[in-house]
């Protein structure tokens, strides 16, 4: 007979979150995200002034007007650096190298918490300074930097461990951190999937058609030939809805999650190839791999051995 016990439910939830786990996935998360952010920043460097300079595409006074009053803008940083004799033109590059330097130290895992806070804060400043230019890539980077700041990410593969500043032991904190990252990804994909379900154009293939042939997005191929095979965008639309909406279920089923992770990677690889959003695809793949990659690896290692034929004497 079914009996509900609130205490039993609570203890199951507690065990789900707080069972001590190896911090290795968090070490991977730290290195992958911080290296990714360094690459993204370096790609941006030649255009840095155009986006963040005082007379960039959106001048400081206008980007400031679009912000909340408490948000720190690059102009504030520039004024601060001005006290040290650094000009407005140079201040944005000093800012850039401090950001990249902080990310570099997070990658190495030296005084990780402090430099993760620095990187996260400077990323807020970047976002506040380009309110009309940021998109999904920046949003997911910001979420990842926030988690780098609050999670115990220095407990694996870090100089903090080598120097004895942090213990590499499995702790309940690492368990909580991994679960939070996993659940956040499930929330994000459920929301994205449900948001798409209500749009009929996802069901009839039009969205994929628009995306593949959109003149702004730089596809590697001319995709107008797809019009002769309408079942292709239709199928890809259904596949996207299925993979995104049910991500939060598929990723919790042993072995099935390997299939799901592979499909997520394929989905984002498609976004990279057809829309030219390479960095956006990259961060999404890294986040999913950081969240569930270690469990997929464990599933793959636990693959059942083939049954051996017995011989009868």
């Amino acid at each position, binding site marked *: 007979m079914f009996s509900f016990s609130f205490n039993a439910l609570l203890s199951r939830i507690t065990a789900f*979150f*707080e069972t001590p786990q190896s911090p290795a996935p968090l070490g991977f998360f730290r290195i992958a995200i911080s290296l990714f952010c360094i690459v993204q920043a370096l*790609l*941006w460097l*030649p*255009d840095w002034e*155009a*986006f963040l300079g005082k*007379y*960039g*595409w*959106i*001048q400081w006074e*206008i980007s400031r*007007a679009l912000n909340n009053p408490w*948000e720190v803008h690059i102009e504030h940083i520039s004024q601060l650096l001005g006290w040290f004799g650094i000009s407005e033109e140079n201040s944005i590059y000093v800012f850039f190298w401090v950001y990249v330097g902080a990310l570099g130290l997070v990658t190495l895992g030296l005084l990780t918490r402090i430099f993760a806070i620095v990187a996260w804060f400077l990323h*807020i400043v970047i976002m506040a300074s*380009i309110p*009309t*230019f*940021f*998109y*999904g*890539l920046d*949003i997911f980077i910001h*979420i990842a930097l926030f*988690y780098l700041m609050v999670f115990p990410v220095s407990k694996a593969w870090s100089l903090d461990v080598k120097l004895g500043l942090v213990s590499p032991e499995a702790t309940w*904190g690492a368990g*909580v951190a991994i679960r*939070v990252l996993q659940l*956040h990804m499930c*929330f*994000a*994909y459920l*929301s*994205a999937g*449900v*948001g*798409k379900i209500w749009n009929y*154009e996802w069901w*009839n293939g*039009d*969205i994929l*058609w*628009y*995306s593949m*042939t*959109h*003149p*702004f997005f*730089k596809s590697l191929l001319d995709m*107008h030939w*797809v*019009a*002769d095979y*309408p079942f292709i965008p239709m199928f890809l639309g259904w596949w996207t809805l299925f993979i995104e909406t049910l991500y939060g279920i598929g990723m919790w089923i042993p072995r099935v999650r390997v299939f799901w992770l592979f499909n997520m990677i394929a989905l984002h690889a498609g976004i990279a190839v057809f829309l*030219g*959003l*390479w*960095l956006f695809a990259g961060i999404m793949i890294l986040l999913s791999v950081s969240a569930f990659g270690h469990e997929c690896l464990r599933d793959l290692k636990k693959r059942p051995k083939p049954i051996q034929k017995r011989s009868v004497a």
Partner: protein
Amino acid sequence: MKYLIRTLLVVHFCFLTLALFQVLGKLERTNFSYFTAVMNDLYFGDWSFGFFSQKVGSVAFERYTLHKWDRSQEILDTQKGFRYFTHAHESYNRFYGLSVYIRQDTTYQDLLSHTVAVRMLNQKREAVKVDVSLLGMQNPSLRDWKAGKRSQPKEVYFAEFAAQ
């Protein structure tokens, strides 16, 4: 410490759940919106991740006509490959958001096109005036395309800016 983290977790997931069910948008004009904005600064807690749930088939092109001292003209047109002098494709991707912003947000339309024009005049010192023209079109659907329908961009916004 454990109790503090548990409390923060409950707040975190409640917030994500509210975002997921699009509840936060309804609280925009209340005092709760300050809390939402702070959570946004922290980790984009109120983001609803509905990428591409908007009208993707809507296309915008920008055309800048630069009038120079010697009365010649230079036309920079995104439809013809103008990429805002960017050095990386990832930088150019950011202009998709800007063109959507200029097209949709009538409050900031003049302001944003003005700031882009100022940059343009600073980049091209020989220019004395710049005409900003925003062209929009709706791409034909798959079925319409197969039936032979093609769209042509139409001007949806125009402004002139002169250097001082």
